[in-house]
């Protein structure tokens, strides 16, 4: 059986030990290495070539976000699950921008970790429910206070479909074949979505989708 190779990176030994226990309990998962800080995580990702890197966002020497960026450059196939204490969009957005596919709150890491690892291996995104909740609350509060209308209502049904698929991590080509459209049409839809929702780049698009509960 081909087990999923996991690299753990956290500057706190106790946390790492706890995570390791959770991962090791799963028959299809195995921990191949542990890193104390961001720099070591990058080195180990390079030498061990893991499928998934589970990484704390706040680490000494090199923080999790920078480490994720570097790992994604060296090993584009390695999916990154980010662990954080913060549910704020500043963190989520930067983690996504650095190439992380999943974002877990440390409080709920043990409960959600296995599910998150499986999701990212399949190319999907995963966010702790608490994160989605905070993002949605922030968004709603902003809308309510500024009196602006929900830009999601501006999207056509087709655009909503494209939004969801792109947010789930599908490439333009995959979206095109799934919806029976040309790649060119998908690209046009994407550009329109970005424009209507005033988004810059895929990380913001994913964040938006999480906020709206389109993906989790």
């Amino acid at each position: 059986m081909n087990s999923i190779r996991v690299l753990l990176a956290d500057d706190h030994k106790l946390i790492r030990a706890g995570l390791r226990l959770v991962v090791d309990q799963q028959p299809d998962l195995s921990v191949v290495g542990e890193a104390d800080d961001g720099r070591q995580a990058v080195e180990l990702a390079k030498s061990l070539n893991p499928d998934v890197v589970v990484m704390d966002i706040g680490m000494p020497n090199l923080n999790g976000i920078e480490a994720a960026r570097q790992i994604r450059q060296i090993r584009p196939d390695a999916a990154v699950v980010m662990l954080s204490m913060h549910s704020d969009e500043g963190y989520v957005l930067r983690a996504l921008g650095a190439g992380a596919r999943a974002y877990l709150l440390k409080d709920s890491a043990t409960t959600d970790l296995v599910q998150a690892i499986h999701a990212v291996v399949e190319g999907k995104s995963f966010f702790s429910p608490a994160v989605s909740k905070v993002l949605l609350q922030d968004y709603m509060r902003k809308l309510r206070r500024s009196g602006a209308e929900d830009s999601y209502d501006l999207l056509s049904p087709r655009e909503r479909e494209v939004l969801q698929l792109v947010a789930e991590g599908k490439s333009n080509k995959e979206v095109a074949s799934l919806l029976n459209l040309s790649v060119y049409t998908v690209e046009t839809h994407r550009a329109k979505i970005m424009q209507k929702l005033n988004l810059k780049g895929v990380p913001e698009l994913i964040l938006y989708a999480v906020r709206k509960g389109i993906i989790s």
Partner: protein
Amino acid sequence: MREHGLTSEGGWPSRKLRLTLLISFGGLLALMVIAGLDALRLARQLHTQEEEIRQAFLAHTQPLLVLSSSIYVYNDRIQEYLMSQDPQADGLTAEEFSRLTAEINSTLKTYPENRQPEERGLLESLQQLFTEQQGMLNPVLSWSREERHKQALRLLNEEVLPQRSRIHETSEKIALWNSQQLGATDREMFASFASLQARQTRLLGIALTAGLVLSLASILYLLRLGEEAQLRYQELARSRTELEALSAQLVDAQETERRSISRELHDEVGQSLGALLVEVGRLAASVPSDNVKIKEHIDKIKSVAETTVQTVRNIALLLRPSMLDDLGLIAALEWQGREVSRRSEMEVEVQSADVSEKIPDEYKICIYRLVQEALNNAARHSSAKNARVTVEQTAGKILVCVFDDGRGFDPQRVRGLGILGMEERVRRLGGLFTIDSKPGSGTMLKAEFPLSPFNQERS
């Protein structure tokens, strides 16, 4: 807009200054008034004296003149009487003689007692002339007309006419004495005028000297006051510098302390709690699902641990915003803005342009704390609905603005510790801190930091 000024050194110098000016100018004014009043009094006095002297002169000279002319008239009447042919006139003439005599006697009686020797001589000779004429006239009155005619020529030649010329002489003497008296009066008046003038001059001199002394004393005193104020100002400036150095040290020490406590909390307490949570999670997983009672217990433990983790985390964040390390300045500010938006009724917007993350850590901390304090103040006190934070980096400087649309305040009067702290932090880095606000019109808080090329390279 203003540099935090020295506002509280007023009071004593201005009060003393006012008093000094009051005394010196009031004194000068009083001296002038006194001198003027005295001059008036003098003029009046002069006038009175002149009047008195004139009255005295008249009191002596007039009766003398009246007397001499009355005696002259008396002599005249004797002559007329001797020469008269009209028997009817006799009785009238005798009557006139007695009237003239009464007049002369009353003048003599009312003549002033303070007589000078010369004056007394004149008066006596007049009296004597009068007595002689009376003595001559008395037998004549009892004569018959014939006898009178017989004797008339002799009497005229031997008695009346020589007496007449003597009266003339005396009159001339009186006129002479009169003019002498007039000269004396003039001299007397001059003398009294001179003495009064001397007194006036003395008084003026005194007033001038006193005024001079007063002004000199005031000037000296003012100079000394100025010197004292200068000294005080210097002292104040020095103690202010010392205070600034002290508070800079305090800020530094506080930041260091906070960082180490935060690290301690994060590394030690946070880690242990995290591990505890992991263990509890594993425990929960290993408990058979039908054992509800134990599951409940475990859930309770878990929730307590989670709350504690959250609390510790919040404390650590407050002490040292790990966002600054994890995300950089701008993201940390955005995070702060959202935090405030979540907690309060105020929506915060953060805008930034061209801000390098390579600015030194103390600048980041300073800006972060500044924005934190400003937003917290606005959310807590101003009932603002919106706040905007802008950070701009241009050649050589960073400009941070925090604006809120709340009720505003008067920065000259309200200056809490928070504002002082912000000002202190900014100034310590060589920045300029200003607050623009007035009641009813929101608050604009600005901090401008100079960035040397060296600063931009560092960290």
